[in-house]
């Protein structure tokens, strides 16, 4: 039973078809990188998986949940699927600790003491224990992103989605975030990451998907894909180095 099953997804923005029939299957514990030019549909695909975008044809099943418009079912799905955004999106009026504790408390009724222990635990996993009482404003971009990862982890998701999470960071700060992601991967988390970090995709992701014009253009084991591109589009993309 795959952790993520995507079959024949079509999506339109107005008259523009952004996803033209995408199918993908990800087993539990696998790490899949999705690469491609801007406009290739990769972020849109990722956002379909947790329901932030809708699609008009095809089906998606993730962590045992079918993707629907039903709000209650969607919320259940989102308890098992975490997402980390390019712009971190931490809640600025809450401390780091409060950011992390909020969702477990209000969606799963986890009692305060337990929530705090959970929050401290995930914060330690991303290496920011000392920032528990700080406000997001006082953290660097890399630190905020790691808190964002911790916030998602606190929900104990079965699948984690990463939407270009290092693209908004200064180069010196991407390393700390990638390290956390690598740790998660080694720990067996099912991960789908849209990324420009080719090196990371090649070394950490089990499989890499190259998207082009709304379709999966090439897909395969990461090292293989980067070493031997089968299509001119991927070859050019890899050569250009993207980023």
């Amino acid at each position, binding site marked *: 039973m795959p952790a993520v099953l995507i079959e024949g997804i079509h999506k339109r923005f107005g008259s523009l078809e952004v996803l033209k029939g995408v199918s993908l299957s990800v087993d539990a514990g696998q790490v899949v990188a999705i690469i491609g030019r801007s406009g290739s549909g990769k972020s849109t695909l990722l956002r379909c998986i*947790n329901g*932030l975008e809708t699609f008009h044809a095809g089906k998606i099943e993730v962590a045992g949940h079918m993707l629907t418009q039903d*709000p209650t079912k969607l*919320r*259940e799905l*989102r*308890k098992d699927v*975490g*997402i980390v*955004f390019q*712009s971190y*999106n*931490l*809640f*600025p*009026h809450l401390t780091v600790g409060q950011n992390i504790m*909020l*969702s477990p408390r*209000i*969606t799963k009724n986890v009692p305060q003491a337990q929530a705090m222990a959970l929050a401290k635990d995930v914060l330690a996993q991303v290496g920011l224990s000392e920032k528990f009482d700080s406000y997001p*404003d006082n953290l660097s971009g890399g630190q905020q992103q790691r808190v964002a990862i911790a*916030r*998602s982890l606190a*929900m104990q998701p079965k699948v984690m989605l990463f939407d270009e999470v290092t693209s908004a960071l200064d180069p010196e700060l991407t390393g700390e975030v990638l390290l956390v992601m690598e740790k998660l991967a080694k720990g067996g988390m099912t991960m789908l990451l849209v990324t420009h970090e080719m090196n990371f995709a090649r070394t950490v992701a089990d499989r890499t998907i190259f998207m082009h014009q709304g379709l999966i253009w090439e897909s395969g084991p990461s090292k293989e894909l980067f070493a031997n591109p089968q299509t001119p589009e991927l070859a050019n993309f890899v050569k250009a180095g993207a980023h």
Partner: protein
Amino acid sequence: MQTFGWPEALFILRSAGWTLALTAIAFFIGSIVGGAFAIMRLSRLRWLRRFAAGYILVIQSIPVLMVLFMSYYGLSALGIELPPFLAASASLSIYVSAYLAEIWRGSIESVPRQQWEASASLAHTTAQTYRHVILPQAIRISLPPTVGFLVQLVKNTSIVQVVGFVDLMRAGMLVNNATYQAFQIFTLVGAIYFAICFPLSRLSRHLEKVMNASRSH
């Protein structure tokens, strides 16, 4: 003809107290009604949105004097005769509700879209998103314009005499009718309004600076 002496000045000052009371009540009731209209304005039901938008548009497109008259004579037509203080409070509350609804709706919409997405992605219901994520941020954003509007409210209370209420302005006019020393009287009246409004204006500008400073991170 009387002279403009201490008893007259004290009468004016006491009436200033009534102006403040009126402001406070109109603001309080107007906030509750305004909050309701702000939520209606953001509702998923189209007719509710349009109704609220219509209400806000009408009240913002007519003079406050007309809001006063319409509520006063409208209620009269329904057979309800309110004493001046209540008439003034009710009318001003309606005026306040429309402007605050617009300010607060604007504040809610100023909260970045990504905050909604992040909250939804954490499996929060819409109500939870409003309560824990959106409203705390919207309230902060709304403080400068809300305080700024309070200044407008204080100034606009100066016309409630048309429904028979004796506020600071009316008191000044009454003393003027008795003493004909308009220059001194309205200087005093103006100074009292200024003393109330100026600190509020400063507060609003200060809050705006604080808001911009924290936003630029």
